[in-house]
């Protein structure tokens, strides 16, 4: 399999605090890779560095042979590495359809002034965006809430909207930030299917940060485990489940228990 994304010796320090220490791993094309770890392990920081929302202190992120760390986030998004956020980060007063349309602006063929003057290309763009938004929402089974205002949506739909906005940019790599958080079993299973179909049918490589272990185990091709900013394990779900260091990190070692 082709390597799409390389995380090379990435370190992030906030003052004296080391959020990520010398982390390296590769992401293969078309895989679903999860990053797990206890609270404060540095998962979100890692995601922020991959999407360039925060600079690395040292080390670099390579996408298709090109460094993408320490750039502006919109440039990384334009290259095809797109992150989603947790549910509160949405375009509140836009409808679902409007959000998905605006997220397609990178595909625009007409210039901004072309839009202002109402050029032919701009009109074609508008038509194409609307059509693709309908298609995408149907794919995500969101057609019936297409005209709902985003601020009125329940949590589960917000999460799906986040993914819809991310997908509308036509990404090659989608970074999902806790896509299953706060969901019940049925909702989680639906989301697992959705993420899988994003990979299978749209050819999008998916990385996710998640706490929900059953979901992670069922969805991931491989898993990276972080603890206190260090990578402590990497492997398939069954390898991770039987890894001693991982069990220790989650359950605490015997020494810790005495210490407590």
């Amino acid at each position, binding site marked *: 399999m082709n390597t799409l994304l390389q995380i090379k010796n990435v370190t992030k320090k906030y003052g004296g605090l080391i959020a990520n220490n010398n982390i390296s791993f590769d992401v293969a094309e078309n895989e679903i890779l999860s990053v797990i770890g206890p609270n404060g392990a540095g998962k979100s920081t890692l995601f922020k560095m991959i999407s360039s929302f925060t600079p690395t202190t040292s080390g670099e992120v390579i996408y298709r042979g090109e460094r993408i760390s320490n750039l502006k986030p919109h440039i990384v998004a334009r290259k095809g590495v797109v992150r989603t*956020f947790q549910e509160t980060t949405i375009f509140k007063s836009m409808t679902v359809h409007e959000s998905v349309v605006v997220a397609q*602006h990178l595909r625009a063929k007409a210039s901004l002034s072309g*839009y202002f003057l109402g050029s032919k290309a701009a009109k074609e763009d508008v038509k194409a965006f609307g059509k693709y938004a309908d298609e995408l929402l149907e794919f995500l089974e969101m057609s019936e809430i297409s005209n709902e205002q985003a601020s009125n949506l329940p949590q589960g739909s917000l999460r799906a909207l986040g993914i819809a906005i991310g997908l509308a940019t036509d990404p090659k790599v989608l970074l999902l930030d806790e896509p299953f958080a706060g969901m019940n079993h049925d909702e989680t299973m639906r989301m697992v299917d959705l993420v899988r179909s994003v990979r299978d049918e749209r050819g999008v490589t998916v990385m996710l940060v998640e706490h929900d272990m059953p979901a992670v185990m069922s969805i991931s091709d491989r898993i990276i485990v972080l603890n206190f900013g260090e990578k402590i394990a990497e492997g398939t779900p069954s390898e991770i489940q039987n890894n001693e260091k991982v069990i220790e990190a989650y359950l605490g070692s015997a020494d810790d228990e005495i210490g407590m």
Partner: protein
Amino acid sequence: MLNFSTKQLIGVGVFIFAIFVGVPFAIAATGRWDFFFTLTSVALLAIASAGVWLTFYIGRINIGQGAFALIGAYVSAILVVKAGWSFWISLPAAGLFAALVAILIGLPILRLRGVYFAMITLVLTQVVTLTALALPITNGAKGISSIPLPSGISLFSITIVPDFATMDSTKLAFYYTACILMIITYIALYRLVNSRLGHLCRSMQQNEELASSIGVNISYIRIVIFAISSFFGGIGGAMFGSIAQSVYPSSFQVADSVNFMLNCFLGGLGYVFGPMLGTLVLYFGWDLLFEFGKYQMLIYSTFLILIIRFLPNGLLSLSLRKGDNK
């Protein structure tokens, strides 16, 4: 090309008829010639307010439009008086110069959000006033006076715009000029808001992080919008200077900047035509309360507080519902 619905076209038609035919007729009938000056001011202030509204549209509170209006007024005055330019060429030049200054100032300050951006812009008007006092070219506190009236424009010896200096009364001419400029401004604003740039602005206004995650170059768009916004300020200011035939450091003050912002709040931040209505109501409201003497400010501010309390989306939210003639 403009994609207006029939209902909107009728509305726009009635509005244009009212300001170009109805108002002059009504003024002639009632003999209230002073209203020409009032309405001309409203039109020009509405242009500057349109700029402020646009900065609101990217989620920034702009209390510095007076600075750009003052810059526009001085640039036009200097070009006309000292360089001998035609006013009609100095007008876009004033707008462009204000936009250029906005780009230079915007680069560092547009990163700031909320109250921090507002505070810096609040200081801008004062900075420009003090600069005008200090620079030799602006003639210090004496300002620039006796600015000639706009000259005529003719193309192939056909008069397009008559020479203002040959008119008996320039009131009507200035009124028409201001109204035409205002209409062009608001058509441009409407187009901008409903184009891709407008949609990107809306995405930034609602969530800058999410906007950059979908590839929006937020710092670039902020600069573009702030420049356009200040262009409107410069145009409004230059036109004012030409009507008053003079510019002083105190021509636009911090209070004017605050008023530009209030016009937007009052009319409605969600509606393109909000600042136009806001300017009309605020300007006339203040004038109508004149007879209350020392209570003028008290009554005026009470009304403002009540409106903002009970109509947080502005006056236009009374008549217009979501999706309607936005």
